[in-house]
């Protein structure tokens, strides 16, 4: 029935091969771009068909494994190239291919005239392919293939402008940090495979089989170790503390890349993975707590940094890190549906934000180029008042900003509020709930603040661009604007699929479609949670109250931003001069990069250098050469017996003969 799902990843792969191998020959940008976009569109269509088929099935039959071929078999280890179609993966398929398609279309306009245009589209298609493998893989190993594949594409695309050293560095940093995470992923896979095999003789890494046997797992103990390993993988991919520093640097890549990879899809892979293995994670309260706390901390921490950045993309990058923190917070408190919900809405509005910022940068870049200025096109201090020049971009951007800030009616509100409520109400972590909720709420405040700071600095006020450049600012072409509009619309309506029960009941019993839809995926985990945690009772009034509170928080954030950046633009300066150390620390991202350099990178290099020059060359080779020198020295002494005088040799020979014959004679 789902026999044709292999088409979904196949199309981008074909697109990648065509553009990668022949792109240089094709030259025509429209053709290249169309091939790339069309490949993803095909995938999207197949995905929609698959989705429709899936929801046509009764709930309990909505998990389907489709095997393509056996990948490797060694002993009791077996891995297939096989796809898992279930509500979760199907949702992700739609998000990835849908947003992917929009961003491909956008890129045709955005990347116009760039050197290596074909390369960009080839990489982008390869990324979609890898991401689809990650999402659809029915076993840990295939997921890992996608997992590393998206990391590779991220590396390639961040380093797209490879002649810039910073781009190369950023790409490498992303890859290596992801690899640290992958290390955890691998260990988790090993440990899980081994534990099941050793104790229950179930040698498998397939998700459905693991789920069926999840009841064999103990609570805590080995599961904690396994899940922590997996979580390490998630922190790497999804840019959580302590492995988040690569994501802001990743903004070196072209903006569509930031939108697709570093906002909408790849970075959410960690969330997806936890969702995929919720039955595993739920069995370790310790891990769940770690996830929740780290998620909360990241949300808050990244938000603080976001308030002081001037680079438009960096603000968005820290915002992404912060929002990912939200998702992990949701996962950590056991609100898997809420996490996935936020993943989806975040994909809409953050993609919209990134693409909007891309449009701004594009326009700024063109204008600055006209006046031969080398000002930074991404620095918000050079912008301002852009809403007059780019009304459509502004409008879509504003919609997305409202969505992320959590104003009721927009997508972000529903998902974010759901997370905050779950953090507060979910019984899993007992007394920690208040703290988690507090962190989430603070982050929400900061989010509203810095996002509107961004909007105000960019689109409002006086235009601060270099003189003469202002008249060159213009709205982007339709190929760029249309994706923006689509995404903005999604940012508005996207939230209504997951209407909270409270509101749903109010407006006439509209159910929470998403929760219902995802039910089969998280059933195992939810059941377990029901059995092991005592659900507290909270009144509707409390829920309403908290909802109201979060709206107030968002409004306060907006108001502060308006105050500082619209009404009294000189206030921030006063503030920074009042607390220079604090500002410097925040501006420099709390010096985390420097700390990593100091604690890990430099010691590693020093160690390497020491081992090479000190151990390899000095000790080992010293020993080896030392032996040789001893032998040579000995030879140097012995060689004095070789006088080079023929008569010496002759005499020695004659004497030898005499001596030997004499010996036998007198013996």
């Amino acid at each position: 029935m789902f026999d044709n799902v292999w088409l979904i990843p196949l199309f981008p792969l074909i697109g990648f091969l065509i553009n990668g191998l022949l792109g240089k020959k094709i030259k025509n940008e429209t053709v290249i771009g169309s091939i790339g976009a069309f490949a993803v569109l095909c995938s999207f269509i197949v995905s929609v068909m698959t989705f429709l088929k899936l929801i046509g099935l009764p709930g309990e039959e909505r998990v389907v494994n489709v095997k393509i071929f056996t990948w490797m078999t060694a002993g009791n280890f077996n891995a297939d190239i096989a796809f898992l179609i279930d509500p979760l993966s199907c949702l992700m398929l739609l998000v990835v291919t849908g947003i992917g398609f929009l961003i491909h279309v956008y890129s045709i306009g955005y990347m116009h005239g760039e050197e290596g245009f074909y390369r960009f589209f080839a990489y982008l298609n390869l990324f979609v392919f890898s991401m689809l493998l990650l999402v659809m893989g029915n076993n840990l190993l295939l997921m890992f293939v996608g997992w590393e594949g998206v990391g590779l594409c991220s590396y390639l695309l961040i380093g797209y402008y490879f002649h810039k050293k910073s781009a190369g560095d950023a790409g490498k940093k992303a890859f290596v940090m992801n690899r640290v995470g992958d290390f955890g992923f691998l260990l988790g896979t090993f440990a899980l495979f081994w534990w099941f095999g050793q104790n229950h003789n179930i040698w498998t890494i397939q998700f459905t089989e693991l789920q069926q046997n999840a009841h064999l797992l103990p609570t805590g103990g080995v599961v904690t170790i396994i899940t922590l390993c997996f979580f390490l993988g998630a922190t790497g991919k999804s840019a959580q503390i302590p492995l988040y520093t690569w994501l802001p640097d990743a903004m070196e890549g072209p903006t569509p890349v930031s939108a697709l990879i570093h906002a909408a899809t790849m970075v959410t892979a960690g969330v997806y993975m936890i969702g995929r293995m919720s039955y595993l994670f739920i069995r370790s309260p310790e891990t769940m707590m770690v996830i929740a706390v780290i998620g909360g901390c990241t949300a808050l921490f990244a938000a603080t940094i976001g308030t002081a950045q001037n680079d438009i993309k960096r603000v968005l990058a820290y915002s992404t890190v912060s929002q990912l923190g939200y998702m992990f917070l949701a996962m950590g408190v056991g609100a898997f549906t809420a996490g996935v919900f936020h993943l989806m809405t975040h994909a809409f509005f953050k993609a919209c934000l990134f693409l909007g910022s891309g449009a701004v940068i594009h326009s700024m870049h063109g204008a600055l180029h006209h006046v031969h200025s080398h000002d930074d096109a991404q620095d918000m201090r050079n912008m301002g008042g852009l809403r007059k020049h780019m009304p459509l971009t502004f409008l879509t951007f504003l919609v997305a900003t409202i969505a992320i800030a959590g104003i009721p009616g927009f997508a972000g509100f529903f998902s974010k509020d759901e997370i905050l409520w779950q953090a507060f109400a979910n019984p899993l972590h007992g007394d920690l709930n208040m703290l988690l909720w507090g962190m989430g709420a603070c982050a929400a405040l900061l989010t509203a603040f810095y996002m509107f700071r961004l909007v105000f600095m960019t689109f409002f006020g006086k235009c601060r661009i270099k003189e003469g450049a202002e008249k060159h600012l213009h709205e982007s072409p339709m190929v760029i604007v249309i994706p923006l509009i689509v995404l903005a619309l999604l940012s508005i309506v996207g939230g209504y699929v997951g209407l909270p029960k409270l509101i749903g009941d109010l407006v006439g019993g509209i159910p929470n479609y998403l929760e219902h839809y995802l039910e089969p995926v998280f059933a195992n985990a939810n059941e377990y949670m029901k059995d092991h945690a005592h659900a507290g009772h909270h009144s509707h009034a409390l829920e309403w109250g908290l909802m109201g509170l979060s709206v107030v928080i968002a409004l306060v954030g907006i108001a502060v931003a308006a105050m500082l950046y619209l009404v009294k633009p000189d206030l921030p300066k006063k503030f920074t001069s009042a607390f220079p150390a604090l500002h410097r620390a925040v501006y420099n991202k709390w010096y985390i990069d420097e700390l990593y350099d100091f604690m890990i990178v430099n010691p590693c290099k020093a160690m390497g250098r020491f081992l090479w020059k000190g151990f390899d060359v000095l000790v080992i080779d010293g020993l080896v050469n030392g032996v040789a020198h001893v032998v040579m020295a000995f030879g140097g002494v012995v060689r004095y017996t070789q006088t080079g005088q023929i008569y010496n040799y002759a005499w020695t020979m004659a004497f030898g003969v005499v001596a030997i014959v004499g010996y036998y004679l007198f013996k």
Partner: protein
Amino acid sequence: MENLTNYLLVSAVLFSIGTIGVLTRKNAIVVFMCIELMLNAVNLTFVALSRHLGNLDGQVFVFFIMTVAAAEAAVGLALFISFFNNRESIDIDDANLMKW
């Protein structure tokens, strides 16, 4: 026919004289001649013993030794000439390239 021992004794004496010559003289050609002397001493032993045993194999061997000596003379003397061309000397002490 003389006593075999006498022949062997003469041969020994000649061999020893040749040895002394090889070991004490420096002129390469004289050394070479001394080697010939030693070879001849050995030849004498062969012939004497062959006669004693009544078997001609020893004498055939002498024949071969002579062949070798002839070849040796040809090559050896050519070497001396070549050496002399290079070093303006025939003193074996000057053939010391193999010295450490």
